[in-house]
C-alpha cells in the first residue's frame, strides 16, 4: 500500500503534506491538481507533516489536494539509448514533449522502451558476479555499452544463464543470476539508481595519473586537467565561462560528455542543440552529438529540478564509467545549483549561513565533487568521471561561499579574470591565480615526461615564472614610467606578453586556433620558451616593444595557420630569422 496524503500548506514550491503513513526523507511523491500530477521530493518531515518541494509550478494548488508517495527516491533510468538525448533535470526527454511550451506535469520516457538492441553476451553460466559486473554488451552509437548487474544488487551472485547473441528490447531478460540463498533474479538492460547517492561498485579509486587533453593551451600547457580529476571555473559574467566550457566539450579527449546546463540561458543550450549534431569529433570522426548527453534545466525552468539536474548528470556519468569509459561531466553553473539550495533552505525557514546559503553548503559541494574520479573496476579495467563545474561568483568576488567551498573540493582552479576579459584576452584564464594541483602529482609528472617530453613540468613552471616576473616588471614600469626603468624591465615584460599572446590567448571562434592538439602545443610552447630564455640587448624600450610586437604578430599568424602546412612552416622560418637577426 502506498502512503497517501493531502496538501495542507503551500509556500511557493514548498508544499506541506499531511501523510497517512510512513514517509521517507528524499522520497518522491506526486501532487495531483486537476488532471495533472506533478513530481515532488520530500525534504523535511515533522510529525505527520511532510515538506515536499514540487518540481513544477504550484499555481492553483489547493488545500486538500491529493498526494501519492512512491516509496523510492529520485532515480535515474540507466539503459542503452541515453547518448545524444536532451533531458530536463528530471531526465524527461525534451525532444519527446509535444507543444512549444513545457506543460505542467509533462513527463516523457528517458529511453526508448521499444528499441531493439544487438546483444552480445560476455558472461557465462557459473560466473560469479556482483553489482556492475559485465554480463553482455550492445553497440550504442559507436560505443560498446556494457550491460551490467544492477548497481542496487549488493550481494554476490552466480550466473544461471545469459541470453544468446541476438536482438532484444531493454526490458527483455538477458540474464538470470542466483543469490547465496538460491533465489533467482532476472536481469534486463535497464536499471534505476537514486541520483543523490554515489555509485560505488568498483574495486578502488586510485589517484589520477593521466592528463585529459582539452585543446585549450591555457589549460593543457599551463594547468593540465587529469583524467578523473575535478576542476572549476569561477568568473564574473562576460568573462567567457560558457565559451570555454563549450570549447572543452567539443575538444576533450573523452568517450562520453555529459553537459548539465544548470540554471543558465536557454539560448546557450540551443547553440549546443544546433552545433553538436553537425560538428565532428576530430578524434573519432563521429558527430559530437553521438557522444554527448545534455541535461538542460535552464534558468526559467523550475528551481527544484535545477537542484536535481547536477545529480542526474553525475549518475549517468558514473553509469558509463562502470563500463570502463572516460566520461567528462560538466555543469554550468554550480552557483545556480547552490542558489536553488538557498531558495529551499529559505522557504524552510532554516537558520542561514553566509550570504543566506544553507550551513551545509560546503559539505554538499565537496560530497558532490568527490563522486568524480578514476576508478579501477572489479574486472581490472579502468573508467573515469572527470568533473568540471563553473561558478558564477556574485559581483565577481571570489570570496563568496560557493567559490570558497568549491575551492576546497576541486583540484584545478581556472580563475577567469575581469581584467583579461575587458582587454579581450581570451580565454580569460588568469595565469597567476589559476592552478592545477595535478602538476604536483609525481604520477602526472611521469605521464607528461612520457607523453610530451622529459622535464615538461619544469618547463611549465619556468613559463609561469616568466609571466610572474613580467607582471612585476610591468607594475614597475607603470609606477616609474617607460624611461624610469632599465630596458631589461621592458624585455621581461614583453617576454611575458609573448607567452600571453601566443600560448595563453586562443581564438575560440577560429576553426584552426580553437583546438590546439598537444603536439602542436608542445612545439609552440618550446619555441616561445626558447625565445624567452634568450638575452636580447635592445637600445631602448621602443625598440624592445617594436621587436616583440612584430614577433607576436608572426606567432599569431602561425596560430591561425594549419598545423605543419606550408604557411605554418613559412611563419616558423620567418620567426627564426626574425629572432636570429636580433640576437646576432
Amino acid at each position, binding site marked *: 500500500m502506498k502512503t497517501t496524503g493531502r496538501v*495542507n*500548506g503551500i509556500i511557493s514550491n514548498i508544499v506541506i503534506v499531511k501523510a497517512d503513513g510512513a514517509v521517507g526523507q528524499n522520497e518522491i511523491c506526486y501532487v495531483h491538481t486537476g488532471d495533472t500530477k506533478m513530481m515532488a521530493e520530500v525534504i523535511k518531515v515533522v510529525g505527520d507533516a511532510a515538506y515536499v518541494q514540487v518540481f513544477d509550478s504550484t*499555481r492553483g494548488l489547493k*488545500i486538500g489536494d491529493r498526494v501519492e508517495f512512491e516509496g523510492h527516491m529520485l532515480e535515474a533510468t540507466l539503459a542503452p539509448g541515453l547518448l545524444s538525448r536532451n533531458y530536463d533535470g528530471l531526465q524527461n526527454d525534451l525532444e519527446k514533449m509535444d507543444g512549444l511550451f*513545457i506543460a505542467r506535469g509533462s513527463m516523457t520516457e528517458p529511453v526508448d522502451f521499444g528499441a531493439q538492441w544487438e546483444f552480445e553476451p560476455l558472461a557465462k553460466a557459473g560466473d560469479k558476479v556482483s553489482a556492475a559486473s559485465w554480463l553482455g554488451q550492445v553497440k550504442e552509437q559507436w560505443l560498446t555499452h556494457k550491460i551490467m548487474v544492477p548497481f542496487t544488487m549488493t550481494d554476490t551472485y552466480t550466473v544461471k544463464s545469459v541470453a544468446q547473441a541476438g536482438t532484444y528490447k531493454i526490458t527483455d531478460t538477458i540474464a538470470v543470476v542466483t543469490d547465496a540463498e538460491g533465489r533467482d533474479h532476472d536481469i534486463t538492460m535497464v536499471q534505476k539508481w537514486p541520483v543523490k547517492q554515489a555509485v560505488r561498485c568498483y574495486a578502488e579509486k586510485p589517484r589520477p595519473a593521466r592528463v585529459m587533453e582539452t585543446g585549450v593551451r591555457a589549460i593543457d600547457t599551463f594547468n593540465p586537467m587529469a583524467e578523473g580529476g575535478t576542476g572549476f571555473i569561477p568568473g564574473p559574467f562576460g568573462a567567457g565561462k560558457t565559451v570555454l566550457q563549450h570549447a572543452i566539450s567539443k575538444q576533450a579527449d573523452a568517450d562520453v560528455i555529459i553537459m548539465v546546463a544548470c540554471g543558465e540561458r536557454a539560448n546557450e543550450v540551443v547553440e549546443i542543440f544546433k552545433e553538436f549534431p553537425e560538428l565532428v569529433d576530430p578524434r573519432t570522426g563521429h558527430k559530437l552529438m553521438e557522444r554527448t548527453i545534455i541535461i538542460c534545466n535552464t534558468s526559467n525552468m523550475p528551481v527544484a529540478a535545477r537542484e536535481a539536474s547536477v545529480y542526474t548528470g553525475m549518475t549517468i556519468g558514473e553509469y558509463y564509467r562502470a563500463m570502463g569509459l572516460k566520461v567528462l561531466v560538466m555543469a554550468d553553473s554550480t552557483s545556480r545549483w547552490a542558489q536553488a539550495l538557498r531558495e529551499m533552505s529559505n522557504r524552510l525557514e532554516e537558520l542561514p549561513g553566509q550570504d543566506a546559503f544553507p550551513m551545509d553548503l560546503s559539505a554538499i559541494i565537496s560530497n558532490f565533487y568527490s563522486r568524480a574520479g578514476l576508478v579501477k573496476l572489479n574486472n581490472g579495467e579502468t573508467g573515469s568521471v572527470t568533473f568540471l563545474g563553473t561558478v558564477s561568483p556574485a559581483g565577481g568576488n571570489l570570496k563568496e561561499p560557493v567559490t570558497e567551498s568549491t575551492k576546497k573540493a576541486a583540484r584545478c582552479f581556472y580563475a577567469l579574470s575581469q581584467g583579461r576579459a575587458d582587454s579581450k584576452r581570451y580565454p580569460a584564464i588568469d595565469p597567476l591565480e589559476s592552478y592545477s594541483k595535478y602538476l604536483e602529482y609525481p604520477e602526472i609528472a611521469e605521464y607528461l615526461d612520457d607523453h610530451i617530453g622529459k622535464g615538461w613540468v619544469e618547463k611549465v613552471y619556468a613559463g609561469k615564472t616568466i609571466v610572474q616576473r613580467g607582471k612585476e616588471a610591468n607594475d614597475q614600469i607603470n609606477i616609474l*614610467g617607460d624611461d624610469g626603468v632599465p630596458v631589461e624591465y621592458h624585455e621581461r615584460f614583453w617576454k611575458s606578453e609573448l607567452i600571453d599572446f601566443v600560448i595563453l590567448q586562443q581564438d575560440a571562434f577560429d576553426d584552426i586556433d580553437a583546438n590546439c592538439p598537444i603536439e602542436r602545443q608542445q612545439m609552440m610552447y618550446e619555441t616561445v620558451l626558447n625565445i624567452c630564455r634568450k638575452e636580447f640587448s635592445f637600445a631602448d624600450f621602443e625598440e624592445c616593444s617594436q621587436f616583440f610586437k612584430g614577433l607576436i604578430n608572426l606567432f599569431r599568424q602561425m596560430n591561425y595557420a594549419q598545423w605543419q602546412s606550408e604557411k605554418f612552416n613559412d611563419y616558423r622560418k620567418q620567426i627564426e630569422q626574425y629572432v636570429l637577426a636580433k640576437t646576432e
Partner: protein
Amino acid sequence: MTTRAFQKIYTKIDNITKATVTLRASGVGNDELATVGGKLAQVVKIMGENVTLQVFAGTEGIATDSEVIFHGEPPKLKVSDNLAGRFFNAYGEPLEGGEAVEGEAREIGGPTVNPFKRIQPSELIATGIAGIDLNNTIVTGQKIPFFADPDQPYNAVMANVALRAKADKIILGGMGLTNDDFLYFKSVFENAGALDRIVSFVNTTENPPVERLLVPDMALTAAEYFAVDKGEKVLVLLTDMTLYADALAIVSNRMDQIPSKDSMPGSLYSDLAKIYEKAVQLPNGGSITIIAVTTLSGGDITHAIPDNTGYITEGQLFLRNDSDTGKVIVDPFRSLSRLKQLVIGKKTREDHPQVMNACVRLYADAANAKTKLENGFDLSDYDERTLKFAHDYSEKLLAIDVNIDITAMLDTAWTLFAEYFSREEVAIKEELIKKYWKA
C-alpha cells in the same frame, strides 16, 4: 470585479501588515487573485486554513472587516490584435479611459518554451548605433539590458533603438516610470507614427510599487500572443528593472524572508530569469527580443541586481559620457553582446569580427596612454597616435548620435586604421588587410 453568484465573501481578516493580509478561508488556490476591500490582491501563502494575500496597492485603509472576494483564477490578460496602440496599467486595464480590450484571457507568467523547440537566433537587429551594431551586435530573440546611471539618457536611446529596429510590435513595460518619461515615450512613438505598433503597460511613480510586479508578466504575455500566435517580431522594452527588483525586495521583506546579498530576496536570480528567459526565437519566425534597463547606483555592477542580471542576460550595454568628445558613447570595454558571434562576419561583412576587435584593442592602448599622460609620463609616438585614433573612434563610431549602416561603420574603421597606424600595428589577418586596407 463584480461578484458572481455563490461566490463566498469573507469579512474577517486576522492579520494586516503593510503589504499583506491573512484570513481564514477554504478552497483557495495558490497564486489566485482576490479583491480585498476593493483592492486587487494575490494569494502568496496557504497554511491550512490561513491564507496570506499580497495586496498590490498596499493595505492602507483595509480594516479587519473589509470584504475579501476570491476570483478563483490567477492574473490574466485578455489578448487580441486590439491590444496594439493601447496604454494599460499594471493590471491590464486601459489607461485614460477607453474600452477594455476583449479577447482570450490568458494566464500571465505562463509556462516555459521547451528549450529543444527553440531556434538559434540568427537575425541581426540593426540600430544604426555603432557602439551596438559594430561592437555589440544584437539579434532577434536576445535579451540585453542597458546598465546606466539614473542621469544617463537610457530611455531616449532605448526609444531610438526600438523605432529603428523594424519590429512588428513594440511592447513597453514601464515600472516606476516617471510621468515625464512616460509622456516622452508616448510622444516619440506618436511622432514616429508608430503608435499602432506599440502596446504599453505602465506603472508610474504615482502608482503603488508592488503593482510593478505584474508589469513584466503582462508585457510578456502580450508579446507571446503576437510572437507565438501571429509569428511577429516583437521587441519588449522593460524600464526600469531595478525598480522591479526593489518591489520584489519589499514583498519578501514583508513576508519575513531572510534576505541575501544587498537585502534582495534569495530567489532574485530565478525571479529575474523567469522574465528575461521569455526572450525567444520561435520556429514560426516570430521572436521576442527584450531590451531592458537596469539603473546602477554610482556605476556599481557588483550590486545584486545588475550582478544577477548580467548572469541571465546575453550581454549588457553600458552608456558612458566621453569627456574627450563630450558625447554619450556605448562603452566598448564593458559592453558585450553574447549573441553577436551568430551574425558578425556571417550576416555582415567578413572583416567585421577582426575589425571590431582591432578597434577595441587600439582603444584600450589609448586608455593606457591616457593613464600615462595623467601620471605625467612622456608619450611615445605610438601613444600619441592611439589618442588621436581614440578621439575619432569615439566621435565617428561610438557616439550614440551616429546613425549609419554596418558596412559604413566598417569602412570608417578602416579609414581610421590607415590614418593612424601601420598594417602591423593593426594586426589583422593578412588576407583581410590585403582586401580592405585603405592605402
